[in-house]
């Protein structure tokens, strides 16, 4: 707290100087007064506040005390000393009035030069999801072992040193959006105030800017990493930061939904949108279950074949079926059956094939995971309880782990850490004059403001909710030569849970960071 009040009162430049002088202590001046710069001070924090993720909830007395602990991770034979900081920081509006108390956990390498050291802010999606999956499952210094696509790992999931951590490349800040995790709006605002595409991105812009100032990091290369709805959130946030004059070096979009108007699964009823973007993912899942008779044994080849067929034949066929109910020649259906393993009757019934029909009908009596089509459960079994074995398997392990991880980082609070709130029920999805958001124009605007901005799209080949080819189709709208790269690997929506794909993603991330910071 010692450093907080001066920061609020002083001009921005003065605050930066003050924080540079006491680099880590400023961001995490806990009750123990950790002099963290030397990597020795540790402070525990028992946060007395009660946090709520309800729409009407409002925090009256936010605090910014943090818990600070010190750790070391050995990566490729090199020991990296790092500091973990857990707690809240208030997002402030342009008049410095508080908007929301944002919970975050930051992992920062000790002794790094702030101007050279990248910092990455991570956001899961929902909307309404806490950033618990990226925090505990992806590239932090420790990660949960899930063993997916197997569903045999019991809770608690082991929490181990992460050989694929990005801490060797960037400092990592995992951020809970308002009304998720332990983040809450500050009175007179309520959580509902920030439950919309634009309001959410604006308050997170204010948080990111404040975190950078308070921690003396405005000169650090800045990266934003979104997953799922986070890939809708981050392009808007990127545009807002660039507009505000804060340069963003790179954006990572994992399992993307850039345009809610193009993803055929975003519908309660049967789709009215062309599902051709899903076809390569159906082929990948059919291959996994050894039902795709056209399979060659090379998944990348099968995906490429399905991609090409989707563009040339299936997309126009599905459009015709949507318009008039007309099925294509039976040879086309036969091609789809061989490509995916899904039976003729299913295509005849629902030619514009939605993901729910596919994952229930591919194997009769079996439900496949929407997040990972390689995961399955017999209909009516315990793992099928939520109609999604991937979610049913993964969630309890993460929910249990966050309850022990935060206390282990010195942060204790009696409130429930909310993994998924009801935000989506009252979320204001309107954006850019549309009822559902399309953030390709936001990316385009950000690239216009900053021609050196680079974007890396990652995803899982077996993800049945944000399919790889839809990301290809949406990003193809950007101007040719736009500074983007796309990589897809075996795995589901949370592709990093796959032990084979996580190291590949780490290598791609390292190369991406080097290219986006101009490092050799």
């Amino acid at each position, binding site marked *: 707290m010692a450093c907080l009040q001066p920061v609020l009162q002083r001009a921005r430049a003065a605050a930066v100087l003050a924080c540079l002088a006491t680099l880590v202590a400023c961001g995490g001046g806990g009750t123990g007064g950790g002099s963290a710069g030397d990597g020795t001070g540790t402070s525990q924090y028992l946060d007395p506040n009660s946090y709520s993720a309800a729409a009407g909830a409002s925090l009256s007395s936010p605090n910014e005390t943090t818990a600070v602990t010190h750790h070391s991770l050995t990566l490729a034979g090199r020991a990296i000393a790092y500091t973990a900081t857990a707690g809240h920081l208030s997002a402030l509006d342009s008049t410095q009035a508080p908007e929301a108390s944002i919970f975050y956990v930051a992992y920062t390498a000790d002794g790094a030069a702030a101007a050279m050291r990248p910092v990455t802010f991570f956001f899961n999606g929902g909307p309404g999801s806490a950033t618990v999956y990226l925090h505990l499952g992806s590239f932090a210094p420790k990660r949960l072992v899930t063993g997916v696509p197997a569903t045999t790992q019991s809770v608690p999931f082991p929490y181990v040193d992460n050989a694929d951590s990005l801490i060797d490349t960037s400092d990592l800040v995992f951020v809970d959006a308002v009304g998720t995790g332990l983040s809450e709006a500050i009175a007179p605002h309520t959580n509902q105030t920030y439950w919309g595409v634009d309001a959410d991105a604006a308050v997170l812009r204010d948080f990111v800017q404040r975190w950078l100032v308070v921690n003396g990091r405005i000169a650090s290369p800045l990266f934003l990493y979104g997953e*799922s709805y986070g890939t809708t959130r981050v392009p808007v946030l990127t545009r807002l930061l660039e507009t505000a004059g804060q340069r963003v070096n790179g954006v990572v979009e994992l399992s993307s939904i850039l345009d809610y108007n193009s993803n055929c699964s975003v519908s309660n009823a049967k789709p009215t949108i062309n599902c051709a973007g899903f076809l390569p993912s159906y082929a990948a899942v059919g291959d996994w279950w050894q039902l795709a008779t056209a399979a060659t044994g090379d998944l990348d080849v099968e995906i490429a074949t399905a991609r090409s067929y989707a563009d040339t034949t299936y997309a126009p066929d599905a459009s015709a079926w949507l318009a008039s109910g007309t099925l294509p020649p039976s040879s086309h259906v036969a091609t789809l059956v061989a490509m995916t393993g899904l039976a003729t009757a299913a295509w005849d019934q629902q030619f514009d094939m939605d993901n729910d029909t596919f994952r229930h009908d591919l194997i009769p009596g079996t439900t496949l995971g929407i997040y990972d089509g390689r995961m399955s459960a017999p209909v009516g079994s315990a793992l099928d309880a939520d109609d999604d074995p991937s979610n049913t398997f993964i969630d309890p392990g993460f929910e249990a782990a966050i309850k022990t991880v935060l206390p282990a980082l010195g942060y204790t609070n009696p409130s429930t850490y909310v993994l998924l709130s009801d935000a989506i*029920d009252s979320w204001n*999805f309107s954006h850019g004059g549309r009822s*559902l958001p399309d953030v390709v*124009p936001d990316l385009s605007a950000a690239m216009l*403001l900053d021609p050196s901005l680079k974007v890396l799209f990652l995803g899982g080949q077996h993800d049945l909710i944000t399919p790889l080819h839809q990301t290809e189709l949406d990003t193809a709208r950007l101007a040719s*030569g736009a500074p983007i790269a796309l990589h897809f690997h075996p795995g589901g929506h949370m592709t990093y849970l796959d032990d084979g794909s996580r190291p590949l993603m780490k290598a791609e991330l390292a190369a991406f960071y080097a290219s986006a910071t101009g490092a050799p």
Partner: protein
Amino acid sequence: MRVAFAVSIWLAAAAAQAAPHLDPGRPPSAVQQAAQAENRVRPASVGATLDSEAEAHLRASFDAADVARRGTLSRAEAQAGGFGWIANHFEAIDVQHAGRVSFDDVRRYLKLRSAPTVPLGGR
């Protein structure tokens, strides 16, 4: 009949409760329907239409900063109004050295500056 109806309502409610929210989740039905109607007349933007939608976001930020509704911003107004990017590039945008820039000045600068970029590679 009435009992069956009540049971079916209960089953539907139970099913709705059991199904967890997804990520990305499905927006409320009314929003989906409004979007469907819009999409029939407004397909996904590409090329010049995408450019104009990108520009519309920037114009909205410009207008938000232009609280006096003068149609131009000084460097200080841009900074105070949240358009720090304009303040950072003010000299280059204000080619007339007028001390104030219009949105057309911003557009002109963006067009002038947009040079071909080198793709990263990969698919």
